């Protein structure tokens, strides 16, 4: 009997997370790189863990499974990648070439799909959204480019009796989980799995430090520069801005005018000022309820 195989591809994204609003200069509209923390998207770590658990299950039942990691990353991110790979990936590839530095979601997915086709994956894991771009789209794009079915919001996955089949738990917001059965090929997008990512032992870490991550350039995955440019110009990013303040902030009048203007423009996010509700219990409570309604946390005559 031909052994069933899961050829799993886990997509890893190296994100630059902004750890504080202070890192954003509202006048110049730029982000100070000192406030950016480079890390692997946490959702991808959950994917990796899910893939590893599935591989273990598959191998226990006599099937075969292989985990290949794929990323669009530059050389200086290899350290981060390898730390994630040490969890138990078998092989890894990274796509890098000129002009890949800034890509939109569709271009990203296009490149990834070409890479996956080259690797020959049939069970693709992808993060639901990356913290730095909040795209929430690459998984869907990927599925469409590959022409695989897609299941999103996957939190856990077990093998089923169907050939190359498995059942996954898909999150339904606030209501529960659907149990969805399918088989390869498929794209699964993961936001947060039920199993915490494992910590690799140091042998594994050292092993991966010595291993090579194969580099794929555009030519090796069959992507032309103009194709990429086409997918990349689908949207145009204009600028960043500060979120609106939650309440009106009146700068103190004793501050110098430049300071007052700056604070007013930035919405006063530098210093949080607590608004204390005044009065007797009754008064405070009604103010509180008014506030909750105004801020849309509750609805009159119905649930949230």
């Amino acid at each position, binding site marked *: 009997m031909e052994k069933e195989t899961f050829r799993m591809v886990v997509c890893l994204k190296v994100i630059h997370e902004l750890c504080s609003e202070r890192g954003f200069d509202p006048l110049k509209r730029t982000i100070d790189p000192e406030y950016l923390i480079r890390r692997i998207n946490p959702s991808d770590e959950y994917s990796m863990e899910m893939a590893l658990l599935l591989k273990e299950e598959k191998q226990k039942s006599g099937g075969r499974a292989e985990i290949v990691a794929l990323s669009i990353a530059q050389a200086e991110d290899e350290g981060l990648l390898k730390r994630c790979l040490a969890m138990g990936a078998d092989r890894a590839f990274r796509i890098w070439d000129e002009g890949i530095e800034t890509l939109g979601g569709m271009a990203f997915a296009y490149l990834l799909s070409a890479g996956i086709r080259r690797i020959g994956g049939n069970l693709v894991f992808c993060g639901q959204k990356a*913290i730095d771009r909040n795209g929430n789209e690459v998984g869907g794009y990927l599925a469409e480019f590959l022409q695989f079915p*897609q299941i*999103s919001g996957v939190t856990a996955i077990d093998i089923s009796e169907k050939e190359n089949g498995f059942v996954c738990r898909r999150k339904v*917001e606030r*209501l529960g989980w659907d149990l969805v059965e399918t*088989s390869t090929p498929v794209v699964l997008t993961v936001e947060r799995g039920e199993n915490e990512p494992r910590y690799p032992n140091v042998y594994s870490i050292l092993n991966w430090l010595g291993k090579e991550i194969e580099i794929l350039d555009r030519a090796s995955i069959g992507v032309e520069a103009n194709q990429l440019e086409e997918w990349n110009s689908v949207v145009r990013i204009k600028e960043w*801005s500060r979120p609106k303040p939650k309440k009106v902030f009146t700068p103190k009048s004793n501050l110098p005018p430049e300071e007052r203007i700056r604070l007013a423009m930035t919405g006063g996010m530098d210093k949080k000022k607590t*608004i204390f509700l005044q009065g007797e219990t009754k008064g405070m409570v009604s103010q*509180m309820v008014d506030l909750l309604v105004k801020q849309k946390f509750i609805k009159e005559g119905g649930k949230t």
Partner: protein
Amino acid sequence: MEGRDLWIVIEHKDGELLDISKELCSQGRRMKRSSSGLVAILVGKEIRGLADRLGQYGVEKVYLVEGEEWERFNPEALIDLLSRIILEKCPSAVLFGSTSFGNALAPRLAIRQQGTLVTDCIDLKKQGEGWVALKPVHEGKLNLMIVPASARLPFFTLQPGVFEIEEIAPTQPIEIEQIHHETSLEKICTKIVGFIKADPKSAYLEEAELVVAGGKGLRDEKGFGYLEELADLLGATVAGSRVAVDFGWVPYDRQIGLTGKKVTPRLLFAIGISGAFEFTMGIKDSKFIVAINKDPNAPIFKVADIGMIGDLHEILPRLNETLRYIKE
């Protein structure tokens, strides 16, 4: 394009329109040109009654697809359907909610229709022939303004709870066009084989949008009971500081703080919690914090947006009562 309709893909459950659908319709009504129509796509089983209600939110026309097979959410079939009718009817833009429903549909459709997509928008405006969208990035620390390419069909998913719902008295009866669609079952590769119901109270704390956390100030089971009631009324998840776990009011997986979890809810109540650093480091990414404590010098007030200084044993029952009242 002039004369092309703005589409909303409706999300509903148990015969009721979800709030996000109402928000989408209201925003759609505000945004559309007077020359184009506001159209809703409604797919499901026995949902004709809902179609009529859509008029209250400004929808002028409904494309209705009814049938047994549409009872459970099946993204592949829906994408197939939507793709077909988009090709047939040529909308100017298509709006979804940024929910697991919308996010499962919009990206694939965008590629299939060779369109563009901006997800999780918190503001959306027409600008000339094109659109301008604003979305949060970096977990809400910054907003990003994005302009989709004007030559392509734009898709948007909108963040729930942001856009105002406006009800109007419709001037004309709503136009309903029934659409028939056969989905060949072989194309559908995923099959729903079951459902696990979630208890909102035991949702993953890290993902909870509304959290009510209690600490030492609750004093006893009775105080904790008020907190549980508040959580129930708000539809929030119950959590606690380390002291609450030590007292056994909440299990360890509901602990917030240094040796517990970090939460990022839209609304957090910190009740009877002094606010030591070991606790506040778990809530620093919350969007809106309300603190109730009888000590005016409690450090929790340094991180709270709203503070109430008083005895929670008086405040909470009152608050719960008022909330119960307005919900009726």
